[in-house]
């Protein structure tokens, strides 16, 4: 177990190196000149431009830029944005918002996905099973931004139930609708996943054996059907925790939330390599930690799985 953990943690190193290098290469390959973009496309004094280039190391090949980034990041110096703020401050402001949004979406999709999945799975063939199935299919097939705009229009603009856009320091109610939009697709997947698992588990021999023992329907359902069905669901949820961070970009754009997604979007537009790389590196780390957590959780939930 200890060796397995160590191996998994060591794997993080090449993953972080690889992704950062890749991102530097991509930012470098983006069309347009960051310095021109900085001045809003107006002509720039050559000397000033050169000075800025030198300051942000933009005059060097990307591999050198990357090495400089790595060297500085060892001392937690991630440099400044083009606007002159320390990258670490920008990231420090954006992440809490997105994490809040992500966790809300996570709780939303987890609770409603599992509840509807269970209702659907235990009552296969009933009319509400069909309704749930159709709705979940709808949510999966309609792109998030459509769901987002539709919800924004009805709940925000037309009925005034929830705020249309979000303030700079958003609270629970502000983020409710964005979180629902963000979690909707995963929720639909969880409904379908748990439903499939439950319907196949109901037919398992050990469920029949449990009934033959004289156990009540409710304890058979909880201990034998749900306990076994929810293993893959928990795995899915864990893997999704990381994916929500990335998915936040669309939701944040629609509702104008000043989170990671929005900041990242702006940074890409401006060609700010350092900022992009810093944000993505943190996201990669969250992703890696989440997937490690999921794998460990899996071993706890399913005794047949042991890591060595």
């Amino acid at each position, binding site marked *: 177990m200890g060796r397995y953990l160590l191996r998994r943690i060591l794997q993080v190193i090449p993953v972080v190196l690889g992704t950062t290098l890749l991102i530097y290469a991509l930012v470098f390959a983006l069309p347009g000149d960051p310095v021109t973009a900085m001045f809003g496309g107006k002509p720039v004094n050559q000397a000033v431009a050169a000075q800025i280039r030198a300051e942000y190391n933009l005059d060097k090949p990307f591999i050198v830029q990357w090495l400089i980034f790595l060297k500085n990041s060892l001392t937690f110096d991630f440099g400044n944005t083009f606007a002159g703020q320390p990258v670490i401050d920008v990231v420090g402001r954006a992440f809490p918002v997105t994490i809040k949004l992500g966790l809300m979406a996570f709780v939303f999709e987890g609770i409603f996905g599992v509840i509807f999945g269970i209702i659907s799975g235990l009552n296969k063939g009933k009319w509400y099973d069909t309704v749930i199935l159709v709705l979940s299919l709808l949510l999966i097939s309609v792109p998030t931004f459509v769901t987002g705009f539709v919800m924004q229009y009805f709940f925000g603009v037309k009925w005034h139930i929830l705020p249309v856009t979000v303030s700079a320091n958003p609270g629970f109610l502000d983020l409710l609708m964005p979180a629902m939009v963000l979690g909707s697709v995963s929720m639909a997947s969880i409904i379908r996943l748990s439903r499939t698992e439950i319907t196949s588990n109901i037919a398992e*021999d050990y469920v*029949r054996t449990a009934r033959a023992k004289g*156990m009540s329907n409710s304890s058979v359902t909880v201990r034998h059907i749900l*306990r076994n069905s929810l293993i893959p669901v928990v795995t899915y949820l864990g893997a999704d925790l990381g994916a929500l961070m990335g998915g936040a970009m669309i939701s944040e754009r629609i509702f104008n939330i000043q989170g990671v997604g929005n900041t990242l979007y702006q940074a890409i537009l401006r060609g700010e390599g350092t900022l992009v790389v810093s944000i993505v590196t943190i996201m990669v780390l969250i992703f890696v930690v989440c997937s490690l957590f999921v794998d460990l959780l899996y071993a706890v939930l399913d*005794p047949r799985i042991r890591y060595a």
Partner: protein
Amino acid sequence: MTETTNMKEKLAEMQRAQGPLLEVKDLKVDFTTDDKRAVHAVRDASFSVYPGQWVAIVGESGSGKSTSAMAVLGLLPGTGKVVGGSIKLEGQEIAGLKPKDYQKLRGSKMGLVPQDPMSNLNPVWRIGTQVKEALKANGMDVAHEKRSALAKALAGDEVAVKTNDDETFIGSQELPALFDAAKVALKAAGKSDEKIAKLMERFKEEWVPGSETRWRVADDLIKAGVKDDDAWVVAKEHVTGSTMNDRIAGLLSEAGLPDAATRARQFPHEFSGGMRQRALIAIGLACRPDLLIADEPTSALDVTVQKKILDHLHMLTDNLGTAVLFITHDLGLAAERAQHIVVMYKGQVVESGPSLEVLQHPQHPYTKRLVAAAPSLASQRIISAHERGEDAKALMEHQVKGEDALKKSEHIITVEHLTREFKLPRKKELFKAVDDVSFSVKRGTTLAIVGESGSGKSTVANMILKLLEPTSGKVIYEGQDIAGFKGRQLLDFRRHVQPVFQNPYGSLDPMYSIYRSIEEPLRIHKIGDKKSREKRVRELLDMVEMPESVMTRYPNELSGGQRQRIAIARAMALDPDVIICDEAVSALDVLVQDQVLRLLNDLQAEKGLSYLFITHDLAVVRQIADEVVVMQHGKLVEHATTDEVFDHPKMQYTRDLLDAIPGGKLQLGLD
């Protein structure tokens, strides 16, 4: 002997007096298909089970035997529904009972030992937990034994009828003190030290916490020579009841699981099939039901394990006075275990009666076929088609010819000092799956390799097929070492040596039509053109007695036996010399098994094929093989002609295997 006869009479008397425990009358069970049509799975089935009796329902798969049993338990799968008739338990109608009321009967009144031990335990719960669920669900008192009226009455002669206190279990905490007290009591009774040591050893084995009761302890001490009063004082003081965990361990050890307290904390995947089945037996009997439904409880297990488990189940149910409804497809097994047999065919009960009566004087044509086909009852090798139906002279000739063939014919495959080692994870030393095995298959004859799972028999087959390289030793085909075969030569070898595998569900590609499956080897070996290949496929289908219309169908539309015929047709496509059958009939029902064996036999007689037959079932061997090789733990332990092995087995292991054939010792007179 007189004691047992007395017991039997007494049992019969009690059964008459009490009436049937379970009475099923004109039971009808329907399943509904997707397009709302009703499929009649059970039609007007009637049978009864008396207290303490073993009743077997025999029939092929799809005969409705399991469905009837599940209808009794109220656990019909899917759309299954009891649509008519009655099911009475202790005189009470239970068909159509509310789910809540049914739930009260399950576990405490009716237990289940299911068919497949691999899928019937939940993989995520510890074994002990799964036993505990049964005890908890029925609110069982884990400190005291619950004995049925029948068991009490039967034990009545031996010891005076027990009160609840006398049925208190030994607890694991108090065990050391109990041993000490027993020792003191024995000493007081004037036993020698040596004798005491011996007795104590026995007690240590027998006094299992959570399983042995106070009166048994007292009884044991009294029988050992301790005065009645003293014995009861010891028993009362030191046998005061077991905990839940003691009881779980006690139940598991009753079911024959060694070191049960530790085992209870393990998960199902850490158990072998036999151990899992023992755990399932413990669960089925945990709440001391009056009726136990055993649905093919051992068909997924090796024969030797099967015998041990059934023996144990028999002993347990006899002691507890539990009646057993035993579902099986093997008439021999049914006759050996049950007092009463019910034969089902296509959802109907076609015959029922006392076991020997049914076996010796079958009335219904289906029962006759079953008796004739039961591998455990067949006494000799099948005679091929064109010899069948002729007089006894032909029969003699066959045997003489057979012996001649054995003596004269050359060896088509010879295996010399074959050894195969495997590396096991986290172990330094290599595991010898096959250890120095030598034998040869003679042209036109059948050699069977017999052994339990893990004996290395399939590894031998894989090496002969050149699917696996031996660590050392040689396989010689037609005088040439197959190790050197490459390219053209290897293709040629593959053409002449064909396998038929165990699982007809897995060995045919579900995406290939039957035609494509059979034609594939011809295409690979570039034999003939499209037209001649099609003609050949038709011939092959005819050979295995399948209609040409199956050519366009897919494996999932065929039954297991039909698929195995297709697999044989495919193996025959290239006119092979040798067919290697790896458990080729093990997954099939007895009747189908019999048909396939006859087919193989006829093909051998017509084409002069040689078979290497790998099986764990000696009963099948007797029907098909000329020579037998017995393997155990990778080693060849016995090699002789079939008759010799059956009549004069040399090794104890072979004798065990022979003993394990169900119904092997039953007298049988077909009329």
